[in-house]
């Protein structure tokens, strides 16, 4: 870690990031009741991503690490690919209207429950 920053500068950096993260946490809390309430899930995940990015870049010192950044991006690409494909599959659930898995369990009866 060859850098030219002084101890004070680096420490200030840590506090700045902490401030940002705290601010975002507050946003997380007020969002569901204040704005964009139709898209809570998306907004929350977006905030999470921004927070994660800050942590990775500054607390985990990924800035300037080419090789490590590349490996992380590769891993994230794979995870997102898995997500996309599995979501495509679940959104095209075949014959979901008649399947048990997609609907509520109505008949209680445990392992001896019978179908149709």
């Amino acid at each position, binding site marked *: *870690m060859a850098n030219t920053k002084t*101890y004070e500068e*680096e*420490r200030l950096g*840590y*506090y700045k990031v*902490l401030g940002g*993260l*705290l601010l975002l*946490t507050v946003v*997380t*809390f007020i*969002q*569901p*009741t204040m704005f964009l*309430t139709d898209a*809570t*899930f998306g907004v*929350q*995940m977006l*905030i*999470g991503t921004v*927070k*994660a990015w800050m*942590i*990775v870049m500054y*607390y*985990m010192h990924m800035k300037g690490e080419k*090789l*490590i950044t590349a*490996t*992380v991006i590769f*891993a*994230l690409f*794979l*995870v997102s690919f*898995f*997500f996309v494909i*599995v*979501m495509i599959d*679940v*959104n095209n*659930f075949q014959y979901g209207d008649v399947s048990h*898995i*997609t609907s*509520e*369990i109505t008949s*209680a*009866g*445990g*392992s001896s*429950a019978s179908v149709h």
Partner: protein
Amino acid sequence: MSDHPYVPEIATDREGNEYEVQGWQGDFFGGKLGFWLFMLTEIMMFGAMFMVLTYYFTLHHDDFINASSSLNRTLGGFNTVVLLISALTMGLGLLKMRYGDVKGAKLMIWATILLAIVFLGVKAVEWTAEYNHGVFLGLPALQGGLPESKPFGEIIFFGMYFTMTGLHGFHIIVGIGLMLWLLKRINANQVNREHYILYFNIVLYWDLVHLIWVFVFPYYYMIGAGLSTGGH
């Protein structure tokens, strides 16, 4: 392994130019790279669990919102802040170590351990409250197909909630162990201003634990926040 200090080898090409050989000993970047690769496996692991979660979120949207709204957001949010500050103390400790302030570094590690214990304590309070409400792994409410069962979407929500926060808590416990070990190594002067790769990696580990929580928290506590004020 040899106890004498490691002297890097020199390789010579045909023109007589000399090149320092990277040995496995004292390879700071190698150690860092290795730990990052380890963290990628954690990303894949939690990624797969988030995938399971999202799969059923798609199938049982309303159940998930309902279940989420019943979690205690005050305690969850408090824990978020606790982890945030602990990541700061951990990072500052490393900073102090790099500038030679060993005492300050140790103080920061103790502070982090304290915060970690607070986190676990709050978690324990939450779980106890949920247990008293009959919502816990293995209890009838979370067993499908029984008369007292919750709707399936809620069962999977709580099942995954306990699995994932449990796994996260396990990581915290491991982290506390690592930090105690780190303190021992600092006292033995095996981690110091020049050789702090172990410290560096444990800081990375702690940030990873934080990172997981950054997604676990909104996914469980916040998606149903708009529905009610929540809290047991």
